[in-house]
């Protein structure tokens, strides 16, 4: 990205993690590396791991990955900058991503995104995409494979289905106030750092996390219910209403 180009002195090598942090992360990293026949395959999960330490991928984190995998920091940087889930600057505890790919955008995602921007007073993808209290980072995301639940908002990659501007605003208010927020599909929210650890391949150990919100979502069941001869419920208004009410409580 051109805005980050600096023409001055080359940067000095990144500092290392403090010894205690390094030792702890190294143990995790060794567990990741052991999953693969070739150590380099561990790089993507290890970048999630270093992100779970600092909330974004730092130069220190990339140096750590490079040293453990026998790569250059340039090779690691090339990978870290390719994938959108790796954040490259400090960001909020809760990453709120509004789907603005065509279908969600048309169904209301564009309106939700605009209203959240106003409500939170943040821009998008600029320097000011995080609220001053460090709680919320707002971004727009691409299709997240939940089109039958449109419009969709993801928070720390948990599903908030069938959103409206009102439900989304209430949800970010709850997050900023420190209230427990539950997705329509997924586990009660943990912080971005904790989410990144799950992405590194370490199962969520919280009791009830796997079971949370039950089986398939309502839209996933409509065909099955019809096939079983169960009367199609009139879901034009209320399943969306239900989902948002639940989440707002």
């Amino acid at each position: 990205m051109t805005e980050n180009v600096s023409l001055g002195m080359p940067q000095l090598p990144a500092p290392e993690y403090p010894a205690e942090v390094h030792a702890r992360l190294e143990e995790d990293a060794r567990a990741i590396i052991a999953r693969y026949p070739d150590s380099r395959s561990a790089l993507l999960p290890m970048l999630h791991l270093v992100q779970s330490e600092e909330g974004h991928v730092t130069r220190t984190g990339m140096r750590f990955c490079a040293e453990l995998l026998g790569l250059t920091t340039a090779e690691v940087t090339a990978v870290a900058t390719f994938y959108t889930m790796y954040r490259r600057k400090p960001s909020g505890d809760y990453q709120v991503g509004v789907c603005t790919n065509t279908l969600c955008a048309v169904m209301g995602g564009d309106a939700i995104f605009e209203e959240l921007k106003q409500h939170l007073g943040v821009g998008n993808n600029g320097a000011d995409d995080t609220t001053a209290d460090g709680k919320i980072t707002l971004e727009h995301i691409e299709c997240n494979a939940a089109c039958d639940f449109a419009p969709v908002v993801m928070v720390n990659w948990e599903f908030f289905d069938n959103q409206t501007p009102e439900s989304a605003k209430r949800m970010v208010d709850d997050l900023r106030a420190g209230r427990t927020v539950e997705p329509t599909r997924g586990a009660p929210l943990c912080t971005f750092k904790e989410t990144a650890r799950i992405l590194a391949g370490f199962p969520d150990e919280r009791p009830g996390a796997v079971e949370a919100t039950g089986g398939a979502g309502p839209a996933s069941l409509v065909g099955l219910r019809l096939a079983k001869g169960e009367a199609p419920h009139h879901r034009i208004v209320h399943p969306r209403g239900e989902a948002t009410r639940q989440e707002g409580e």
Partner: protein
Amino acid sequence: MTLAAEIDNNNSPEKLLAPVLSAFWDQPNSWTLETYERHEGYQGLKRALAMSPDDLIAYVKESGLRGRGGAGFPTGMKWQFIPQGDGKPHYLVVNADESEPGTCKDIPLLFANPHSLIEGMIIACYAIRSEHAFIYLRGEVVPVLRRLHEAVREAYAAGYLGRNILGSGLNLELTVHAGAGAYICGEETALLDSLEGRRGQPRLRPPFPAVAGLYACPTVVNNVESIASVPAILNRGKEWFTSMGSEKSPGFTLYSLSGHVATPGQYEAPLGITLRQLLDMSGGMRPGHRLKFWTPGGSSTPMFTEEHLDVPLDYEGVGAAGSMLGTKALQCFDETTCVVRAVTRWTEFYAHESCGKCTPCREGTYWLVQLLRDIEAGKGVMSDLDKLNDIADNINGKSFCALGDGAASPIFSSLKYFRAEYEQHITGKGCPFDPARSTVWADRRADNTEVNA
């Protein structure tokens, strides 16, 4: 029975739908091993292990199962391409990077029934003689990742994974791998590069993954739904499978209905059902609106209009009508939707997701976005329309992988069916549509006083 009643009966959801993978999603704890086993889970595996690997490959081939990830390549044939006795490790990699706009079948499948995938993977690994399999799951779906972690743990504990599975001598390690946000990793060779810890960029083929895939070893890359369909074929027989669908497109599949329809969701049916049948049984478009355009299989498949409501949704039927079955992602848009806005947004997606490896796609998608944004904003000129076609033509078939072809599809097809609407944006110097009317809550607020929340 009167003729009318008979016709009605033949068009009933019970007749037209065929839930297999989704058959017990409504049961309590549907994602657990216990529920899966109560619904004949891991019975297909037992039948498979009683066969020789070569017979198993032949059986899956004879079932006619075709890839559900978009291309429709015969699954059994993919397995057969793996060289045997070559002394190299073989790998199975499941493509769970579901990211094609509109596509939303694998994610709910894995959320509700992850064991069907794991059972299918064990069967596939037995067939291709693989001892290490991977699930490459897109990273942005943590609830699904949790359930895959748990399902794999359960499968190891029950002896379905690990060493000497069910006393068969088969050993299998299964690794769940979360991606990091890149649509291109759904392309199988980019996925392999990504799984090797590199930027996700497609590889030149040949060599194909069957010869030099993961770590340059023979590798099968299959879509989630393809692999998850295998256990039922083994358990109930290939005759049962071929009794559904058509000769060239046998079996059942998940259709994902979304957009301005009364009842969006998953509908599992024999291949060949039509959008009209799906809409008829599910309440049609949202009240008071008409279908304007739709995609048969995600944004990369050329769009259809109302005139295609009766196209059989199987590989041949959709192909003959000028599009592709793709992922059966039936995104339906009504008359409130601006087609220029829709195509602009898809094109922005392709430009954003283009990996940058090849020039036609990297540069072409960028310039398409510039032109489309101008047209949408009322700043376009008539010659831009031919220019759009021209650029799309320079991407289509001339880029490294199918992402480029996908980017060209909405351009070509929207210009074919809706050129007048593009012209309207140019002559009227702006978009004639009100985006507020397309939202899900647009009619709700007008119809009733219930505040929608």
